């Protein structure tokens, strides 16, 4: 599990030109190992979705991306643009939040899954049909033979998300990126889709990069968690130590503020203040205005990510001081 499939180094994404560019992702580095499920958790404006899109080189044209995105030894940011389509869908699959806007309403779902195979592999039609049916079974589509000729609007949200997953897995990608795959779904349907993702991981040994705002979903399926806030990584740890021993005051506050089914607290813990809009905090730690343990240094200098226990990185001056 130690070999990195995806290694993101010093990734920065900026919009706008001149002396005041809007920096939505600020110098972040993390890796996803083979077969590992990594969650990026963040609130609005944290840069989590931009990070995911940048891996597929799908950020808007106006964005300036710097750093390295090394996938299987190649820096994707240095590849000529025309080589990206061969990677998208083949090496890296993607599931988006709203499947209806990602599926073609005028094509049957059988044709859409078939297209995903045809684009990357040269195999005869009857075999492709077999693969399409196998994929639909994999994602738990009931009665797949009869559903091949159905159109996306004939499916519910949960079923569309299964179709998306079938397309994403069509060429057995090594990495699956899922951006808020269950956010638009009802609780009982979300449980179905999460179970499907666990099943996919078990069968294909794919690595998964899951983007979410929901700590419950992260706890459910991720092995490692990257916590982002206002474009920065504040904490990066394996899931168990993050949930039992969060070290960054933001992560700690977030975990304490989430209502759970079994807690009997009268009042919830609350982090004061509001989430800063993307790119508005220029210097120092972006969480400082809301932080209860902030120090003078936090206003001037962004704390670097420092390793505490093996595999547990935290960017916080107060944490560093407490550990010293």
């Amino acid at each position: 599990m130690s070999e990195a499939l995806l290694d993101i180094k010093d990734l920065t994404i900026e919009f706008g030109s001149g002396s005041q560019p809007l920096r939505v992702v600020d110098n972040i580095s993390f890796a996803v190992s083979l077969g590992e499920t990594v969650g990026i958790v963040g609130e609005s404006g944290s840069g989590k979705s931009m990070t995911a899109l940048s891996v597929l080189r799908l950020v808007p044209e106006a964005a300036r991306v710097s750093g390295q995105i090394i996938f299987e030894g190649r820096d994707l940011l240095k590849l000529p643009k025309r080589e990206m389509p061969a990677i998208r869908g083949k090496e890296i699959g993607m599931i988006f939040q709203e499947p209806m806007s990602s599926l073609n309403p005028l094509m049957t779902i059988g044709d859409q899954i078939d297209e995903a195979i045809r684009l990357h592999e040269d195999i005869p039609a009857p075999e492709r049909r077999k693969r399409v049916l196998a994929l639909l079974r994999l994602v738990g589509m009931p009665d797949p033979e009869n559903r091949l000729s159905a159109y996306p609007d004939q499916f519910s949200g949960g079923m569309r998300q299964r179709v998306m997953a079938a397309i994403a897995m069509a060429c057995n990608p090594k990495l699956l990126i899922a951006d808020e795959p269950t956010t638009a779904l009802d609780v009982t349907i979300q449980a179905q889709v999460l179970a499907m993702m666990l099943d996919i991981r078990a069968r294909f040994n794919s690595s998964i990069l899951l983007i979410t705002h929901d700590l419950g979903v992260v706890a459910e399926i991720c092995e490692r968690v990257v916590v982002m806030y206002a474009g920065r990584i504040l904490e990066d740890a394996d899931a168990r130590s993050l949930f039992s021993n969060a070290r960054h005051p933001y992560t700690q506050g977030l975990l304490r503020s989430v209502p759970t089914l079994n807690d009997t607290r009268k009042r919830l813990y609350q982090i004061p203040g509001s989430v800063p809009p993307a790119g508005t905090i220029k210097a120092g730690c972006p969480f400082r205005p809301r932080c209860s343990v902030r120090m003078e240094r936090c206003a001037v200098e962004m704390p670097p990510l420092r390793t505490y226990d093996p595999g547990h990185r935290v960017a916080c001056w107060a944490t560093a001081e407490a550990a010293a």
Partner: protein
Amino acid sequence: MSVLIDIQGLGKTFSDPSLRLGPRRPPVRAVDQVSFQILRGEALAIVGESGCGKSTLGRLLLQLIEPSEGKVIFEGKDLNKTTKAEMRQLRRKMQMVFQDPFGSLSPRRKVVDIIAEPMDSFGMTKSRKERREKVAELLTLVGLPSSYMDRKPRQFSGGQRQRIGIARAISVDPMFIVADEPVSALDVSIQAQIINLMQDLQEKKGFSFLFIAHDLAVVRHIADRVAVMYLGRIVEMGTKEQIYAAPHHPYTEALLSAAPQPDPTATRDRIILKGDVPSPSNVPSGCAFRTRCPLAADICRDERPSLREIEPHRTVACHFAAPRPISHRRAMA
């Protein structure tokens, strides 16, 4: 606690309003034979998945839409039988907080005008000075600086806008507030602020509260009692303690077990329901939940289970109602 609102056999059917040619779509039974009471000063939560009729129910209670059948009795008055003038006076006593704080505030108006609008409409402000003083008081009450009153909503974050929406709702000292998913559009770190604020205000002001939500964990914090809806019907209702410790309806049990919890060591026997919620225009016969229910038997197809009281304060609509304790144990480390 005495009864504030008595809901009797409330139902709402929407029919296809389109003028196009061809066959009409079948009518949608959004709310079906719903009866319960809301006590003075209580917080009641309505929980269910999309399409279960929870928002329609909230709007029916406020008479924002007219019921197809049944009654809503508010302080002893049947809302269907009130005159326009009476209803207008009653409106002051019932207010609403919406899900989307962006869509529910006019972008062109200043905060002071947005918050004062209900007071203006009931002639509760005598002078400009008094109006500003009242708005300043309300802003402080919801945790915003009173100097914000001359700004426009776009200058605020989602959480701040929801505070403005809440200030507006409490401005006329209502006895009843319907909050429709008031925190589900907010960032995680902001949700707790708004939940705490609503709890504090309810304690301070003593209004009754109908809290509509899909998230059972959020409800646990705010509600005294919980009603679970499925396809337009209440399937289970009870005190918070009763519902969370041991639901009696298999749907409530499935909802509780499906909610992801922020604890990777929690061991739970997850129940994953098969299939989707059926369309409310084609509700299954008998028990509406039977097509997804792990316990379904013949009787569930033939006979609609009535909502019956199985212990004080607790009603369940299931032929096989029985305690289904949920374990939230933590695994031994």
